[in-house]
């Protein structure tokens, strides 16, 4: 399920020669730009993709990703070893920036719907086109949508996802259950028969 997940490798999955995220954050906190560059290249794609799913606009998503990494740079000393992983912390910063941006843009987005730009719509193998799937996901309540993105699209564990959304693992699992059930029903997968 998670193969092909590029640039979202967790610190545990990195090779032996690559510094883990905690070590990088400690170095970033002491002003090490090389460490920041490693951290940036490790997660920038994932953060842009994550923000774009929220905002629906590539340019704004890149701005949000830049702001998120800038905050990591300026606030690295406030990351706590005993708390969430650096990756969860970064996702949470990005998530909160997206929420702020959405609050500003909500009326506009409701008028025009959230449509990803510059992407030709293609039919997926289940007979459902990308736009339908994206629209169905976007119609989910905010937290259910976030749960699906973090879990299914970014391959994060339920523990990490719960840290990002500021909830418990049990609540995170409940969000996932309701989100997947809604998707299954709205996409009418039950009626499509077998694979």
């Amino acid at each position, binding site marked *: *399920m998670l193969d092909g*997940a*590029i640039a979202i490798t967790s610190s545990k999955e990195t090779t032996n020669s690559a510094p883990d995220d905690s070590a990088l*954050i*400690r170095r970033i*906190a*002491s*002003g090490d*730009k090389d460490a*920041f560059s490693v951290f*940036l*290249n490790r997660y*920038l*794609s994932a953060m*842009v*993709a994550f923000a*774009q799913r929220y905002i629906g606009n590539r340019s704004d998503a*890149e701005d949000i*990703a*830049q702001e998120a*990494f*800038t905050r990591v*740079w*300026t606030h*690295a*000393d*406030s*990351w*706590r*070893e*005993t708390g969430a992983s650096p990756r969860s912390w970064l996702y949470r910063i990005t998530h909160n920036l997206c929420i702020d941006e959405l609050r500003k843009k909500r009326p506009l987005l409701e008028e025009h719907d959230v449509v*990803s730009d510059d*992407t030709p719509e*293609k039919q*997926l*193998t*289940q007979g*459902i086109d990308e736009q339908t*799937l994206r629209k169905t996901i976007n119609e989910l309540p905010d937290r259910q949508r976030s749960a*699906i993105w973090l*879990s*299914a*699209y970014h391959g994060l*564990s*339920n*523990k990490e996802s719960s840290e990002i959304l500021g909830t418990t*693992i*049990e609540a995170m*699992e409940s969000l*996932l*259950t309701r989100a*997947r*059930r809604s*998707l*299954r029903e709205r*996409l009418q*997968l039950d009626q*499509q028969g*077998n*694979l």
Partner: protein
Amino acid sequence: MNSSSKTYHDRSIGENEAQQLLDTYGGDSANWPPECREALVQAIAGSSVLQKAQRTASQLDALLDEHRIRETTRSQSEHIAQLAAKIMRELPAQKPVGAKKDPANQRVRFTLPDLRSWWPAPVMAAALVAVVVTFLPSEQPMSNNIELAFEKWAWEDVTAQSLAPDSGTEIDDDMDVLVGLWQDG
């Protein structure tokens, strides 16, 4: 994926619970929590309804997975490298090294906040109290003389004489005194 701390070793799973687990973790048994995997496999093996539910869950997995890979592939453009360079170029200055705290000491900072940064609060509060005490207008809108005259008018004269005929003259006189005192200040 992590799971909550439910245990399934000592009991079987009903259809509703199995459906809920499939909704949570998808149709791929590799993603099911180890503590419920065996019980869920057994439940599915014994129910055609759950077998169909597993296929549907797998369909949703495949759909999300395919969409994710397409989106991820699209986001891997060379533009990301340009964005990374831009972020590096535009990095603001960090706080001065002397003002930074070692991340290893964060717990100490959390439990013992820097009280030195709080000093303006009590100073400002004390100044505010001093201003209020000094400049707040007195709560005596009338002088004592006026109050006494008013009481006299209201209780002694009026109550004693209001029922008497032609008592209005004395009351009017007292009111004149009252107004005079008021004007004198």
